[in-house]
């Protein structure tokens, strides 16, 4: 569904991505792992268009979308849940979610999406009138994910959704990711620091290091290889 071919990008004069390759299969969870500074977030941002690609290809549903502006990618069904909680703190939970339905296509199915988000996160329904900035960390993360779901995506890219959450909430977050795959049928590209949980949830795993993808394989293969685990995942 999404293919990344020899993508290059960076910030200013500093190149961060050195031609990684990646393929995210439809309806599956593809996990992207790697140490800090490997370029995982940059890869997502470049695929999404918030960081300008220097070279290489991003192919989505068989179409070359490398240079497509971000808002058009959202219309085509790509969604990104950015790292850290980028929500609108002074808007209520409901307003935050409504903003997700900003593109015309998404507005058409707003009610259905809202129901979906509330069924996935019943907590948000209870708190729909509260200001998003006053929610707990876990709830804020739910809002960011919920808001991304409101854009009616086909493929959702999650950048460290469990960052800064309590262990219990981390488990819940991974359950949610699984639910998004199984119940909604989304294609998921997951970036995580939490290697073990991420490998358990994944259908396929890529490992990034120094700006490029070094290994890829089925989760069992990664789990069994002591070499890979010790070298890149540290556990």
């Amino acid at each position: 569904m999404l293919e990344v071919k020899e993508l290059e990008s960076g910030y200013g004069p500093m190149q961060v991505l050195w031609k990684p390759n990646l393929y995210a299969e439809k309806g599956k969870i593809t996990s992207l792992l790697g140490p800090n500074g490997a370029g995982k977030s940059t890869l997502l941002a470049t695929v999404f268009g918030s960081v300008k690609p220097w070279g290489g290809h991003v192919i989505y549903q068989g179409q070359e979308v490398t240079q497509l502006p971000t808002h058009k990618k959202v219309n085509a069904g790509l969604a990104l849940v950015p790292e850290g909680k980028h929500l609108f703190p002074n808007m209520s939970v409901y307003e935050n979610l409504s903003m997700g339905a900003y593109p015309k296509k998404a507005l058409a199915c707003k009610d259905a999406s809202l129901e979906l988000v509330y069924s996935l996160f019943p907590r948000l329904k209870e708190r729909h009138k509260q200001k998003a900035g006053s929610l707990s960390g876990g709830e804020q993360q739910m809002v960011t994910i919920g808001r991304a779901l409101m854009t009616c995506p086909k493929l959702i890219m999650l950048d460290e959704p469990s960052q800064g959450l309590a262990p219990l909430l981390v488990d819940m977050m991974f359950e949610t990711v699984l639910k998004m795959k199984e119940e909604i049928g989304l294609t998921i590209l997951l970036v995580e620091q939490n290697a073990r949980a991420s490998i358990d949830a994944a259908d396929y795993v890529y490992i990034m290091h120094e700006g490029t993808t070094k290994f890829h394989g089925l989760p069992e293969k990664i789990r069994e290889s002591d070499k890979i685990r010790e070298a890149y995942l540290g556990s």
Partner: protein
Amino acid sequence: MRKKYLPIIPVIIAYLVLFLVGKNVSGTWQLVATLLFYCALGQAFNIFMGMTGYVDFGYVAFMGMGTYGMALGITRFVFLQEYGAVIIVIGFLLALLMSTLLSIAVGAVALRLRGAYFAIATIGVNEGFRFLIEGARIWNGSEGIIFMSQLNDILGRDAASALSTFWADVMVLVIAFLAALTTLLFMRSKIGYALTALREDEDAAKVMGINVTKYKIIAFITSACFAGSLGAASWALKTPYVFPPEVFEIHYTIEAIIIVLLGGAGTLLGPVAGGLIYGISKYYLSIFIPGFQLLIFAPIIIVIIVLFPQGVVGMLRDYTKNTVVGRFIV
């Protein structure tokens, strides 16, 4: 009228009361004209600064362009004088055109920057533009343009004097109202949602599939157009001359910032409240302690930011939330 446009009512009432007081209470028109100017300035600036959260320190340059537009319209098209007021219309069109062109030029460069970097980049704009006009002797350079006699030729002496003492202020009133109306239309449309989102968190807005650049430019150009017509009406038509140091004077930008913050950035009624409070206090300060009215800027800004960062209307809106009154306050 649909419910969502109800908040325009207090705006209409405020401007109507101002107008009627000025018209009927003798000796108040001068003050009312000043207040209308400040309200219009705030109303126009609010469309950009209030709605996007970006601070443009070069805002006065758009008013300067508008003033030049009107001056050029009157001096270059004076041969059409038998058509009279048509030339004023041409002047307004030129004012709009010139402020739009400048805003596109500035916006294309500066709107790529964010937050403090945007603010710093725009500080240079009006200073640079002023020195360009003076140095390259564009439009008469530092000697400016004086078009009193042309205006008299076009409209006749009596009409020209009525224009500068009364009708120019009425035009300012119309501009203030149109800017308020535009603000409300923006607020109640997809443009407003996009602007609110980008003001709260630009990265998040992008992720939502909002073309943030497009909406920033829309707000910037709209705001600049109102500034241009305000310059044309309030400066060129009231005092028929234009000198670069006067129309590119940075303290008008600072006044605009104070008015917007005082009233409540991004609110519809804020600029009216801010304009009135600022205008009235400045007027009386200049009577009681002349010379100090400009010194008052600093403490006002500090007090606003510390005590009520949401401005007067922002506070009022929070207090009246979920009440009948609240429906009229946005």
